[in-house]
């Protein structure tokens, strides 16, 4: 009797917790329970700051209420992993990274199909969106997100240091290396070049070097290509710049905040990074070198100047949300031409062609940066990391040789080993 009672209680407890999980998973996509409150989850980003300030306008015009959750990039990603996995309907609108999570989310059915919604309103104008960003937010022919921010890799440099050394702005990778060498030799406590060094973090910025040397992560048939001659040269070049002309005691964990800090503290002459982060370098409150920063298009490698041109963030609707129509209303407002122009003026490069064509759209940008962006948009490549489902793992694999190169290990051997691993990874993903 006693033993049975314990079992009965345990069964209730288990059934209860299972029931709770089931409740979370059972919510459908119908609008039967549509609510006047739209729950929006956004990342900490300049774009978010702008939209946050404008939300009262939306609430007034639509009569809806917005409940905003704002998180750091990693926390945001972890939240999605937990909540979307549990089929939670607690999120209506979600800011996500199309190239990082897009494929996985679409495959898992987390993102609502927006195809009919984007084409319904001609004045909102889906056709106005640049082709690359649209491709990145489309999965299996269905539109699953609306891009909000685009990015290209550009060269940040110090005008004063170049002038003092009597150097021109480098146009090719060879000139960049020579200039970095000259500046490091002339001012030993200043690095010639800085960039991201973390195995995974560096992959996106390394990608532009890879393309400019004539390589890519995979070849035309979808096989791993990170040990091609071009790729090996690119790994050697990127890592070599940091090893030979980078900051002293360089760590192999730098993502953009650390690398940007070195540049904005006045400790490096050249820095390659996403253009969308330019305000960190030009804002006097954040940068010691705000008045001497210059921008240029990524120097050309043997295959030309081929930076990535990608949508780094997009907005999507949670498939499990019961408030999808209202969620779309929010997205439609947040991505309207007016809002995109306002965001772009505040320093967020947008995905709308009409805004780029409008002189007001680039009026607030440093002139050289606007020129670099427009040049990069023309010959840019639409991805900055391997286009796979488990991007995190792929980045770790293809990033390995970058770190080997920075630490002075045998790069061709590292690239060959990484190539085998990456091919195995691609094979398992296809299964």
């Amino acid at each position, binding site marked *: 009797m006693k033993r049975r009672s314990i079992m009965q209680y345990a069964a209730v407890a288990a059934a209860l917790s299972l029931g709770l999980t089931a409740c979370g998973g059972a919510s459908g996509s119908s609008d039967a329970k549509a609510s006047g409150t739209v729950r929006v989850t956004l990342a900490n980003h300049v774009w978010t700051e702008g939209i946050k300030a404008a939300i009262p306008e939306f609430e007034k015009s639509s009569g809806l209420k917005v409940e905003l959750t704002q998180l750091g990039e990693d926390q945001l990603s972890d939240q999605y992993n937990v909540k979307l996995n549990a089929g939670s309907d607690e999120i209506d609108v979600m800011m996500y990274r199309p190239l990082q999570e897009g494929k996985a989310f679409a495959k898992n059915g987390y993102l609502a199909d927006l195809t009919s919604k984007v084409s319904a309103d001609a004045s909102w104008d889906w056709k106005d969106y640049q082709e690359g960003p649209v491709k990145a937010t489309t999965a299996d022919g269905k539109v699953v997100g609306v891009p909000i921010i685009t990015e290209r890799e550009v060269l940040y440099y110090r005008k004063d240091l170049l002038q003092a050394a009597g150097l021109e702005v480098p146009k090719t990778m060879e000139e960049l290396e020579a200039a970095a060498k000259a500046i490091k030799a002339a001012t030993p406590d200043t690095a010639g070049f800085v960039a991201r060094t973390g195995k995974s973090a560096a992959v996106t910025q390394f990608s532009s070097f890879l393309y400019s040397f004539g390589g890519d992560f995979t070849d035309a048939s979808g096989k791993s290509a990170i040990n091609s001659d071009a790729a090996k040269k690119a790994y050697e070049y990127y890592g070599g710049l940091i090893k030979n002309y980078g900051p002293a005691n360089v*760590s192999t964990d730098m993502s953009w905040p650390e690398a940007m800090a070195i540049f904005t503290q006045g400790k490096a002459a050249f820095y390659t990074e996403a253009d969308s982060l330019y305000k960190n370098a030009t804002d006097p409150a954040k940068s010691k070198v705000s008045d001497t920063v210059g921008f240029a298009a990524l120097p050309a490698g043997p295959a030309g100047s081929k930076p990535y041109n990608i949508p780094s963030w997009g907005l999507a609707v949670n498939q499990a949300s019961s408030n999808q129509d209202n969620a779309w209303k929010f997205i439609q407002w947040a991505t309207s031409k007016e809002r995109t122009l306002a965001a772009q003026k505040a320093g967020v490069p947008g995905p709308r062609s009409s805004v780029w064509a409008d002189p007001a759209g680039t009026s607030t940008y440093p002139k050289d940066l606007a020129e670099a962006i427009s040049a990069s948009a023309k010959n840019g490549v639409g991805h900055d990391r391997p286009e796979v489902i488990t991007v*995190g793992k792929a980045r770790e694999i293809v990033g390995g040789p970058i770190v080997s190169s920075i630490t002075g290990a045998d790069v061709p051997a590292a690239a060959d080993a990484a190539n085998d691993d990456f091919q195995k990874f691609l094979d398992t993903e296809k299964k």
Partner: protein
Amino acid sequence: MSVLNPPRSAPARSAGRPPGPRANFSAWANRHRKWLFAAPAMIFVGVLIVFPLAWTLFLSLTDSQGSVRAASEFIGLQNYITVLSDVDRFWPAVGRTMSFTGVALACEVVLGMCIALLLWRPFRGEKWVRVAILLPLVATPVAVGMMWRLIFDPNIGFANQLLGLIGIPAQPWLSGQDTALGTTIFMDVWQWTPMVVLILLAGLTSLSEEPDEAARMDGANAFQRFFYITLPLMLPTVIVAILLRGIDALKTFDILYATKGKGGGSFHEVETLNVYAYGLSFDYNQYGLSSAVLILFFMIIIGTMWLLTMRKKAANK
């Protein structure tokens, strides 16, 4: 089956009138009171411990990945075979977990004992010293990680600038492949030694003075009194401190994640089992594999706990 079911046989207390529902319930509650009072705790254990553990065990036997709601197949012990034969990430992570715990624990107990002995006898300003020693304990581990990360930054960090002042070249601290684990151990020691001090101090103050005084009369010096009298008497307390702090150190995550990020750095230099399992779940979305790592990790913790508890029982005898 419901908790509120009427009892199968209600006691016939008043003849003639059938008992009302309230009397029924109260009689039922009386008969089942030991279960009723234990129920909240049992539900708590069931929902928060048994169910997640059982679910993790179940996941570890499937090839679940991408989404836990996606169809997955039962693959038996395949995940365990994969994990146990993984010499690139799993075994080094086991090694790091063990060396992190072992070294941190040894430093904390030795340092903690020294500090506790110093604080044992009353002295002037004792209160202030105690507050100062307890400060690291109240800080959030993530904040502690971020703070030390800034201090140990290879180029703009305070630690290297300080070394520069006395003419020592800059050290790689967290950024070096060989030094990163040591640096995180240092942070752990910095933050958690106070807890060991607290436990040991409580043990010291409850010791009887007589054996110590008797030894003093017999002419034993301080070292002899410590090693032959205080330490043996303190052994059960020391083992409690090791037990509590050991389990905590084994599952350290926040300091490591805050300083080196996903994967424990570019060379996985501080990747312990916890960090590895986290990466498998949240970065690679391999829930089956991650669950297998967690179950193995759970077994390691249970095993260690069991060994230490046995030691404590032996010491108490």
